[in-house]
């Protein structure tokens, strides 16, 4: 399968990755060759086969609904690029 420039631009937007003009042809080639390689899966008949999400088919454990975490906001926010009054700052979203 060969991807077009517009496909790659759309994918990059969905993935929230800025691509430069120079990057686009390279990623278009790379992604096309990866999807061409993946195509061979289509030759396999998988009708009726249960998809495998976990090697041991384990299911998610349940736990009692109790508070188990303490507030560590100050600690965690030490890694944040920009905070003020305990809030994460981003460029203005609503004018």
């Amino acid at each position, binding site marked *: 399968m060969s991807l077009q420039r517009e*496909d*790659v631009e759309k*994918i*990059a*937007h*969905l*993935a*929230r*990755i*800025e*691509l*430069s003009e120079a990057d686009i042809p390279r*990623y278009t080639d*790379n*992604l096309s*060759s*990866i*999807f061409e*390689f*993946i*195509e*061979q*899966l*289509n030759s*396999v008949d*998988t009708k009726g*086969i*249960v*998809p*495998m*999400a*976990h*090697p*041991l088919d*384990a299911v*998610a*454990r349940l*736990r009692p609904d109790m508070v188990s975490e303490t507030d*560590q906001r100050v*600690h*965690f926010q*030490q*890694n*944040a*690029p*920009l905070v003020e009054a305990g809030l*994460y700052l*981003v*460029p*203005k*979203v609503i004018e």
Partner: protein
Amino acid sequence: MHTKSLTELSQGLRNREFSSVELTQHFLDRIKRYDGQLNSFITVTEEVALAQAKAADELLQAGNPSSPLTGIPLAHKDIFCTNGIKTSCGSKMLDNFVAPYDAHVVSKGQAAGLVMLGKTNMDEFAMGSSNETSYFGAVKNPWDVQAVPGGSSGGSAAAVAARLAPMATGTDTGGSIRQPAALCGITGLKPTYGLVSRFGMIAFASSLDQGGPMAASAEDAALMLNAMVGFDPRDSTSLEREAEDYTAQLNNSIEGLKIGVPSAFFSEGLDPRVAAVVEAAIKEYEAAGATVQDVTLPNNHLSVPAYYIIAPAECSSNLARYDGVRFGYRCDKPKDLIDLYKRSRAEGFGSEVKRRIMVGTYALSAGYYDAYYLKAQQIRRLISEDFKQAFSEVDVIMGPVSPTPAFNLGEKTDDPVTMYLSDIYTISINLAGVPAMSIPAGFVDNRPVGLQLIGNYFSEAKLLNIAHQYQQRTDWHAKVPAAFA
């Protein structure tokens, strides 16, 4: 001191032949002296190491060591979060990230009295088979500094091979413990999915990621695995099992062992010189009383394409958290929120990571889920059924780890698909979730070749037994590259 086994180091510490501080200083000195050539460490934690060594010495002196490994140093792959210490995952995105807590594997190591020497280099977010995608530069193979060490746990493999650390942690999503172990001539084990907690292990593809030991020998790997495995409620796929001593079966006889050899692992693409080394190793097992038969893994050729749907899909989801807002890299002067996301991710991630995020984003995007992700999960079932069938006939499957010995730096980075195909013998194991090891089995052009041992679910102790018996009869695992002796 650096060529001693973990058992010898443990005895040396207990007999007061040397202290943990002396032992730790010895390895720190070796890192200082040699790592400029290898680039196997991203961060060396000298102060932490010496403080932990001092504490270990006190426990040893009081006759109260917390485990057989108390006082012995190790290195952690920089994918494991270490509280208060930079945890980069090989990425510019996390170059400024100081982990706010310890991974389960790290706290278990501390509880066992292990001494952390530092954090090892790796492919960015564990995506790569050569260690060339690291933001911190490629790691060199200690056997030949022109060659790659393999990846993604290339720093851990190179550090152990050059004896800059007696053991190191690794993670394996598609071969990232076994392939660098093979290319650097050490012993590495990927456990059954769910045995080692993923808590604090930076996520790549959650249904495949598994941590494991990298060490000089199977005996060392068994001791190290004892200090890594354990149920952890903080990992939703951690398995609740009774604790097992992975050294318990090491000395069992392998007389009558049934070895399966899949013809699919010896087809086109395998370097005939690698095939010869692997065949000679299997002959050695026959001489030790094992029998060999063919097994078929008819869907193995589908493992790489299925993996390159599943792993990127899970990575695109896991790596969505790197948004430039809460932690990690943020671009300069974003003009709006979208620009903040897009440029932070464009500048913070390297090109292989971006490629995989985009492949996964496309595969999961509206209208494509059934055609790609669901299809790949069905193929995954077929691959896992192949193993089930094979293990109803044999005790262990043997074959190569990598189709070639270590290739040269820069040789393959241009073409992603060629690089992906070098994982053809390792990926199906992750898809099935079974355990597998790589052990040193010889050399081609002075570059190491690994033998892969694949076992059924929870057969780690048996695999280590099989590996140990080979290592009792051969000395490939004891060889150290001359430049680092």
